[in-house]
C-alpha cells in the first residue's frame, strides 16, 4: 500500500516535471519588471550580493495552474483557521510546553537521515558530521531523541553553513529550477522540484519504514505537524503574512519562492 502511494506520487511528480515546460510557456509574473528607472534599480540583492544590472529579469516562478492552486490555497487557509489552529490551541492548553518540545525533538531527531544525506549531497561534510554526532548523542543520551542534549552547549567548532533541509534544496543547488508552482491540499505551497524533493525525503524518513497502515502513517504525520504548530502559535509567520496581505495567495507564493531561494543559496 505504502509503496504504491509513494510510487504514485513519484510518477505524478515525474509527469509534472516532464510537462513543466509546456505549462510554463507564456505565463509571466509582473513582480520584478518594474525595475526600469534608476529609483527602482537595486544595488544589492535581498541577501546582500551585488546585482548585475544587465542580467535579464525573468518571472519569479511560473504559475500556469494559478486557478487550480488558488482553490487549494483557500481550502488550506480555511482548514488552518477552522481546524488546525483551534485543535493546536486546545492541545497547547491541555499539554504543557516541555512534553510538546520533547515530541518535537523526537521527530526532529528522526529526520536526521534526511539532513545527513542531503548534507553529503550538497558537499557540506562538516554539517553532515555535526548531524551524525548529534544524532548519536540525542538517540543515546537523549533517550531516542526525546531530549536534545546538544542544544545550547558550547562547541569546539561549528559547521560553516547551516545544515541541509531536504532534497528540494539539494536539487536547487544542482541548478534545477522550480518548474511550476503548486499548492497541495494540507501540505501547502510547493513546486515540481520541491515535490520531488519531498517525496525523496520521505524515503529517508524512518517512519516510512515502520509497520504502519496508510491511515496510521497519515495520523503520525498529522500529529507531528499539529505538535509543531502548537509551539508556533505566537508570532506565526503564516498568519502575519496572509493577514497583512491584500492578496494572500500572491503574498504566500512570493514569500515561499523567495524563502526557498535563500535556502538554496546558503
Amino acid at each position, binding site marked *: 500500500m505504502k509503496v504504491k502511494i509513494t510510487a504514485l506520487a513519484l510518477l505524478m511528480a515525474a509527469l509534472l516535471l516532464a510537462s513543466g515546460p509546456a505549462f510554463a510557456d507564456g505565463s509571466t509574473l509582473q513582480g520584478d519588471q518594474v525595475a526600469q528607472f534608476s529609483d*527602482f534599480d537595486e544595488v544589492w540583492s535581498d*541577501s546582500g550580493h551585488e546585482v548585475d544590472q544587465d542580467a535579464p529579469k525573468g518571472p519569479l516562478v511560473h504559475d500556469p495552474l494559478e486557478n487550480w492552486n488558488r482553490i487549494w490555497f483557500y481550502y488550506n487557509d480555511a482548514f488552518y483557521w477552522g481546524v488546525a489552529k483551534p485543535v493546536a490551541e486546545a492541545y497547547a492548553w491541555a499539554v504543557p510546553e516541555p512534553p510538546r518540545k520533547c515530541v518535537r525533538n523526537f521527530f526532529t531527531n528522526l529526520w536526521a537521515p534526511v539532513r545527513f544525506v542531503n548534507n553529503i549531497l550538497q558537499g557540506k561534510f562538516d554539517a553532515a558530521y555535526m548531524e551524525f554526532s548529534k544524532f548519536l548523542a540525542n538517540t543515546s543520551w537523549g533517550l531516542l531523541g526525546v531530549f536534545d542534549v546538544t542544544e545550547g552547549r558550547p562547541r569546539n567548532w561549528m559547521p560553516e553553513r547551516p545544515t541541509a533541509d531536504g532534497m528540494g534544496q539539494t536539487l536547487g543547488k544542482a541548478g534545477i529550477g522550480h518548474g511550476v508552482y503548486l499548492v497541495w491540499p494540507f501540505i501547502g505551497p510547493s513546486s515540481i522540484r520541491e515535490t520531488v524533493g519531498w517525496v525523496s525525503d520521505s524515503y529517508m524518513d524512518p517512519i516510512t519504514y515502520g509497520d504502519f497502515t496508510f491511515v496510521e502513517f497519515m495520523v503520525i504525520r498529522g500529529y507531528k505537524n499539529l505538535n509543531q504548530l502548537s509551539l508556533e502559535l505566537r508570532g506565526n509567520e503564516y498568519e502575519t503574512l496572509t493577514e497583512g496581505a491584500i492578496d494572500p495567495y500572491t503574498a504566500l507564493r512570493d514569500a515561499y519562492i523567495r524563502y526557498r531561494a535563500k535556502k538554496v543559496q546558503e
Partner: protein
Amino acid sequence: MTGKHAKCFRPGLILTQALCFLVLTCATVLAGPATGPTDRVKQGADELIQILKGPHFQNPAQHDEAIAILREAAEKYIDFEEVTKLTVGRKWLDMPEAQHKEITEAFIKLLERTYLKRIPTYNNEKVNYKKELLKGNRAMVLTEIVSGDKTISVNFRLKVIENQWMIYDVVAEGVSLVKNYRSQFAQILQDGTPDDLIARIRDRVKELDAKGDDETDKL
C-alpha cells in the same frame, strides 16, 4: 622681511583661505549624514525596544496609544512614502500628489495593523550586526536576530533622504517586504486603477480592525 610678512595679510589670500574653509565645510556636509546606516538601524531598534519595555505595553487598555507611540518612533527611521513608492512601482509616476498621500496613509495603516501589533510577541531578542554595504546614497545593513534557539536573518535597505539614512525595505529570511507587496499591488494595478488598489487596502484594514475587536472581546 617686512614685505614677505605683509604678503601673508593680503586680502586675496584671506579670501582664498576663507573660501577653502567654506568649501571644506560644505564638503563635509555634502559628504553625507552624520550617522551611518548601521548606527541608524541600531538607534531605531533600541528606540523601539525601549518603547516596548515601557508602561504602555504592560496594559492592554492602552494598546491604541502604544501603537501611536510606536508609529511615531518608526516614522523617524522608516520612510513610508519611499516604501509605498517602491511597492507601487512605475505607476507611481502617473499618480497625482494627492493620491501618493492617500495610498501611503492607507498602506501605513495596513502595515501598522499587521506588523506593529505583532512586535510585542518578539521579546528579548538579540540583534547581531553582521555587515554594512555602502554605495553612494544607498546602503544595506545585514543583521541576525537571535531569540532563543532561533536565528532569523533580517536585512535592511536604506537610502539618504533629506541628509539622513532612512530604512525603506526589510528583508526577513529572504522575503523582502517591498517585493512581497509589489507582487500583490502589481496584479491589482494591472487589472484596475490606483483607486481600486487604495480601496482594496482600506477594505483589508477594516477587516483586520473588525477581527481585532473580536479578539479583544474574547480576552
